[in-house]
Structures are given as structure tokens and as C-alpha cells.
């Protein structure tokens, strides 16, 4: 925490210097960028329907498969790792529909939700209004190009975002895995991720904290047939990068860019980005809907209970997980990573 309380009005002034405010009160740089599970037509329809119904009713009616992703209270479980006191000013980079921005706003002083996809932010803003939250400010901008503000923040959230930083193009997730376009990059994915993390750190106050959530590149399941969740390719998360590139070019006509890391690799990355202290946590079955989170340094997995199954394959898989995590305590193969990094 900084020694002086952060003034949200001064941060708002900072934002006013860099952005316009549109008719909805959203800070915007008017850039045309996009990352969404929905395609642009779907999002346009969502924007048209939003004034007439509540956000949850709309999603439940039109996109029921997204209801839990957006509204499930399970998603906020990792926030307790931050040791929040309630006085924090936070910035959620890649906030999308507010899965973490909203619960964060329910327990901290102020949240700035930043995303490049305007319709997502309109929905997020409406969610905040429906809940009577007046401490959410919404910023439409490319999170990779955030300016350095004079007023610093206490907490930065980078939740399921870092792996998409190196993919610098508009993404409609439904068609992303069919595209064949090749965009040439001058930086490696790691360089782009480091630049982004450096910029995030620049905007943190002294002793400010970063909450980073990401998949583990050597999750045990990736070795036994679970596809990389970002590329939908087998084995690319842990193969040498040049081999992953070859596989991705064969399949999609473009190199493998959605780099994720092991626990050690994530820690190294954060240290390289200038964070002084990094605490790692293991998440089961993943960081998005965790049932269990354990500190990585403790090797404490006694309380981990894998989900029961009714199929033979499921039973075998469950048995394997019990062996790997409870008996052999191979924590480096845990599925999800949350890192709390201190500036």
C-alpha cells in the first residue's frame, strides 16, 4: 500500500488527460480493437437489447453458456489471496464482463476496469449500476498501450489475459481457431508480455500488488490429451517453442503465440518484470472456477479432492490425479496458477 491514500479523483483527472468520456461515461480512446467470446454481430445485438432487460436475464436468455463465466460467485475466490483491507484502488486489465471487477468493487474503494472491447464494457457498466456500485470506472483502451499515470493504484488484476497479450489482433474466439491469417511480429511473445507487465508495474504504488492468473504450461492433463486452452492444439504449451510454432503453422498458418509458463517460469517472468516478491498458488481444477487453492511453497495438498466420476476413463483420471497430487505431491503439475506479485 502507498503511504498516502490514493485519490480516485486525481486518477480520474489522469484518465481525463489521456482519454475522452463518451455519452455512457466510459473513458475511451476510440480505438477499434476486439477480443470476445461473441462475434461482432452478437455483441451489437447485445448492446441493442441491454437497455430493455437486466444483464443476467439477457445473458441467460441469449447466451446461457456464458452465464456462469460472467456471474458465478465462484470466480471471485482468488481475490482473498490479496489480503484486501477495503481501501484499495484497483485496476482490472482485460476486465471483459467484470467477473473480477464487480466482486472487487464490492469490497474495495474503487475499481478501474480496462478492456479493448467496447460492448463488454457496456455490459460491465450496467452490471455495476444494477448492483448500485458507484465505485467502478470503465476504460475502453488497449491494455498493452496503457499510459503511465501520475496517480498510482494499489492492486492490478491480470486474470486470464497474459497469454493473449502476444496475439495483437482482433479476436472473435469462435472463429479464432479457424483463421489462417498470419500477422508478423517484431517481438517474441515473452518480450511483449514483459513489456506489458513492466507497464502494469509502473502504474502500481510502492508495495502495490499484482494478481496474475494463468494456466500452468505443464499441467498434468496437458500430457495426457488435454488441448492447450488457447490454441486448442495438443502439447504446444510445454513443447519447445520452435516445435509448438511448427505445429501451429501446420494447423493454423500462424506461429504459436499464446505463451504460458510453469510455476517457475511464471515467477521468473514476474521477477524479470521488476516485481520484488512473488507468491505462487496452485488452483484446482483451474483458476477460473477454483474448488481449491493452495500455496505453492507449502506442498499442502492433503485437502485436494478430485471430482468424482461415473465413467471408467473418469475413474482412471481421478485415480491418476490422486496419485500425482496427493501421494507424490507433484505440485509443479497443478493445473492453474495464481501469482501475487509485489512491487
Amino acid at each position, binding site marked *: 500500500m502507498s503511504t498516502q491514500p490514493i485519490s480516485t479523483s486525481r486518477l480520474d483527472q489522469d484518465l481525463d488527460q489521456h482519454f475522452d468520456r463518451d455519452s455512457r461515461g466510459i473513458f475511451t480512446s476510440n480505438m477499434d480493437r476486439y477480443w470476445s467470446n461473441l462475434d461482432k454481430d452478437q455483441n451489437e445485438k447485445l448492446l441493442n437489447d441491454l437497455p430493455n432487460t437486466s444483464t443476467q436475464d439477457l445473458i441467460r436468455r441469449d447466451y446461457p453458456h456464458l452465464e456462469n463465466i460472467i456471474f458465478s460467485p*465462484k470466480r471471485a*475466490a482468488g481475490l*482473498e*489471496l490479496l489480503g484486501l483491507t477495503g481501501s484499495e484502488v484497483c485496476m482490472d486489465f482485460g476486465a471483459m464482463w467484470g467477473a473480477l471487477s464487480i466482486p472487487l468493487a*464490492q*469490497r474495495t474503494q474503487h475499481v478501474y476496469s480496462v478492456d479493448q472491447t467496447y460492448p463488454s464494457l457496456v455490459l460491465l457498466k450496467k452490471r455495476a449500476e444494477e448492483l448500485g456500485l458507484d465505485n467502478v470506472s470503465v476504460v475502453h483502451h488497449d491494455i498493452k498501450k496503457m499510459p503511465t499515470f501520475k496517480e498510482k493504484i494499489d492492486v492490478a488484476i491480470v486474470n486470464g489475459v497474459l497469454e493473449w497479450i502476444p496475439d495483437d489482433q482482433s479476436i472473435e474466439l469462435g472463429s479464432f481457431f479457424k483463421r489462417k491469417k498470419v500477422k508478423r511480429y517484431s517481438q517474441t511473445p515473452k518480450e511483449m508480455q514483459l513489456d506489458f507487465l513492466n507497464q502494469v508495474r509502473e502504474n502500481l504504488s510502492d508495495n502495490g500488488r499484482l494478481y496474475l492468473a494463468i494456466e500452468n504450461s505443464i499441467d498434468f492433463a496437458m500430457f495426457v490429451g488435454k488441448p492447450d486452452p488457447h490454441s486448442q492444439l495438443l502439447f504446444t504449451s510445454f513443447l519447445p517453442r520452435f516445435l509448438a510454432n511448427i505445429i501451429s503453422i501446420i494447423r493454423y498458418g500462424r506461429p504459436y503465440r499464446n505463451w504460458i509458463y510453469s510455476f517457475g517460469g511464471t515467477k521468473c517472468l514476474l521477477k524479470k518484470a521488476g516485481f520484488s516478491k512473488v507468491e505462487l498458488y496452485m488452483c484446482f481444477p483451474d483458476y477460473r472456477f477454483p474448488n481449491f*487453492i493452495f*500455496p505453492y*511453497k507449502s506442498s499442502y495438498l492433503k*485437502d485436494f479432492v478430485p471430482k468424482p466420476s461415473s465413467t471408467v476413463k473418469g475413474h482412471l483420471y481421478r485415480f491418476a490425479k490422486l496419485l500425482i497430487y496427493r501421494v507424490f505431491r507433484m505440485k509443479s503439475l497443478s493445473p492453474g496458477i495464481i501469482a501475487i506479485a509485489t512491487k
Partner: protein
Amino acid sequence: MISLLRNCVHGSDIALYRFCDADGVCYIKTSYTQNGILDLRRENAGWRWYVQTFLPEHSFPINVVETGQFFRLQTPQFPGKKYRYADGLSPLNKTAISTFVAWYVANWPGTRETAPMHGDLSLDNILFDDQPYILDWEHFTQLGPFWGFDACYLLFETMWFHSQQHALDPHFPFIAAQLKRLSESARLPAPILDAPLACTVSTIRDNMQLWGDQLQQFESKLPILLLTDGEIAAIDEALSSVLS
């Protein structure tokens, strides 16, 4: 160090954590929804009543953070050993239940008509040390149903788990003995002994609002609700023949 142990299970909107530091271990529950916040307010009330009533000489801190849209409850770790409810009416569990019923009869306040109620008293929520220490007060109410309800529930829930794997016949004398002990306090309503299981189940069904929405969606949270009327009648008949 903090660990997430449970996250929004069985229709609940509450996450449970264990926190360890140099000062010891405590447990934290949080919720961001109105249903979860109501449950945690009840749990906070239950903890405070329990600690003030039974543990006034101890220093067991209970801390609350509430913003109106978020609730965080921090409770102490109690000493003691927990017994596995899934083992049913094993010899160890029977000893634990017997110990608890004796303590309940000697200490729990209330009348035939109403008594403070825990609402989910299973072996999973009791630690046994110098005395029983009771956890998980999210269904607490000061004005619960009849005195003895929680003890009856503990007996019958353990019996239910036992019935999933084993025959109950050899254990009816034990259950009847605990019920008799409760009745000797003169606070257990007399009709309970005529049909103890049916009374316990019907008390829950007649007062579902005490357990909130969660029970409406997940009856398995109080597994004795899964018994059929025929099963309940058969068990009560067996108990009656032992009690008489």
C-alpha cells in the same frame, strides 16, 4: 499462508479458507451475493452466541468485515479431533455421539417449544477435546424448533450414513438409549419418542425457511430428507419397540 478449501458447494455462495500465520490458524468465509451474506450474518450470530454461551472464559476472536455487498467472517480454529460422519455408527462415532448427547443434555438451553438451533449438526461439524467444539453456524437461529432437535438430527444423520452401507438393526438400542437420555431431561417434547425420526424430518419440512434457499434446491444437504415415508415409519417402529 491462505488456502481455499471449499468454494460455493451445494448451492451455497460462500467460499471457505484456512489462514495460517505466526499467531495460529483461523478460518475465513466470504460471500459477494445477498443469499451468501444472509447466511454469513446468521453464522456470525451463531458463532457469537455459541462462544458467549459456552466458551466465555476463552479468547476466541471472531472478526467481521461487511460492506453491504460483501461479507467476510473470520473464526478461530478450535482444538480437538473430528470423527468421520461417513463411517456411520462405528464404535468410535458412537462414543463421540454419546459424549455429545451427554454434554448437550447438561448444557444446551431451551424449552420444549423452542431452543437455539445449530441446524446442521453432523459429526463433520464437531471437534472433540475437553468438550465438544461446534463449527459451521450458518443455519443458526435463536428461536429454533424444540429442544433436542440438533441432537436428534445428529443421531439420525449418522444413522443415515450408516444405512448406506450397513444394516441398522444392531444399532437401534444405541439410538434409543440416546433418545431416552434426551427425554430424561424433561425438555424433549413427549411426542418425539413416539416417532422420533418422523418428528425430526417433519420439523425440518415445516420450517424450511430456517435453512434458506439452499435446502430447497439441495435436500441432500440434510440427507435424512432423502428417506422415504416407508423407511421413516420402519425405523420409528423399530425404535419404538426398543424404547418401550
